């Protein structure tokens, strides 16, 4: 038996169907979830940068202000929060560093630097900078 005609259909005038994008489109695949986590962790990066500025500002305000900030930073709840913060910063950094060989094409004359070298180079710079910062802190302490 023939189906009833769709009342809104007009012959020779195509009626396209466009799927509505669901609000939870990003849970469709693991790669979308990873992408969203990477983007969301940028908020934590912004917080870490802001915290650094606050520390510099507190130092400028004198020893008492800096001591108050250190006191707040050593509160167990804040320490716990900052451990989570460190994990998010590591996730953000690693996911971005892993993408660098795709975005960056380096040439030395006619030789194209292999992707693995670009990848290792970024991690090496990260490691060296981290060691310099640790050395500075240890030196000051």
């Amino acid at each position: 038996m023939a189906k009833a005609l769709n009342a809104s259909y007009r012959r020779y005038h195509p009626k396209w169907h466009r799927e509505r994008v669901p609000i939870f489109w990003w849970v469709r695949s693991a790669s979308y979830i990873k992408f969203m986590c990477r983007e969301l962790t940028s908020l934590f990066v912004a917080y870490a940068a802001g915290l650094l500025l606050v520390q510099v500002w507190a130092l400028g305000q004198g020893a008492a202000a800096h001591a108050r900030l250190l006191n707040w930073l050593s509160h167990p709840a804040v320490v716990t929060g900052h451990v989570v913060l460190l994990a998010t910063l590591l996730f953000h950094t690693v996911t971005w560093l892993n993408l660098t060989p795709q975005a960056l094409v380096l040439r030395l004359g006619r030789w194209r630097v292999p992707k693995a070298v670009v990848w290792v180079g970024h991690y090496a710079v990260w490691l060296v900078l981290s060691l310099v910062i640790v050395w500075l802190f240890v030196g000051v302490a």
Partner: protein
Amino acid sequence: MNSVAVEVLRYRPETEEEPSFEVFDVPYEDNWMVLDAINHIKDQMDGTLSYRWACRMGVCGSCGMMVNGKPVLTCATYVEDVLPGPVRVEPLRGFPVVRDLVTDIRDFMVKLQRVKPWIIREEEKPLAEGEYLQTPEELQDYKQYSMCINCMLCYAACPIYELDPEFIGPAAIALAQRYNLDSRDQGREERMDVLSQHDGMWGCTFVGDCSVVCPKKVDPAGAIQRYKLDATVDWFRSALMPWRKR
């Protein structure tokens, strides 16, 4: 002979307001592709099923569909690889559906033209001077991007294109990059003018799935990020050395 349940999205606008799934119990042989199963449905079960296909060897880029939620060339996807089933077959995501598995791809065709995917010369040299020669290294610079078959799987994998259909999209930008990197081409600035618009390269947030699903390993995500880097260098050059040509 084994059989598998294939759930095919059907949309018949003359009789239906909304698409719905129709399940076919398809017998299949070893080494059948998903396209073989769909052809079996068309030939033996329901001749009204509409879809595109042509070469059956991963070259024409016509038979791209969503299989179990992933954009694939159905001629290059084994049934055995998507078992145990049911195997869900849908039209490419992000495009309007005309009928069943057929999408309207005009949006892509228009965008492709906008990036001028052909060699642009400021001035052609006389024929008597011969062809434009190229070294193997110069060929390697763009060869990867020239492998694009316009199958649009990258668009179906891109959530940005789905959320904002104005976005010019992965394949168009990769093809623009293909010509930018060609030593014979002089149209880089013209394409930059198109791709630096709000719907151009900056719409990409580097999800990266376009490169994952690409059947030809073109890496559109990489092409877009390289383009962004070029645009940034151009901007700094023009800001710091305004007297220099881009």
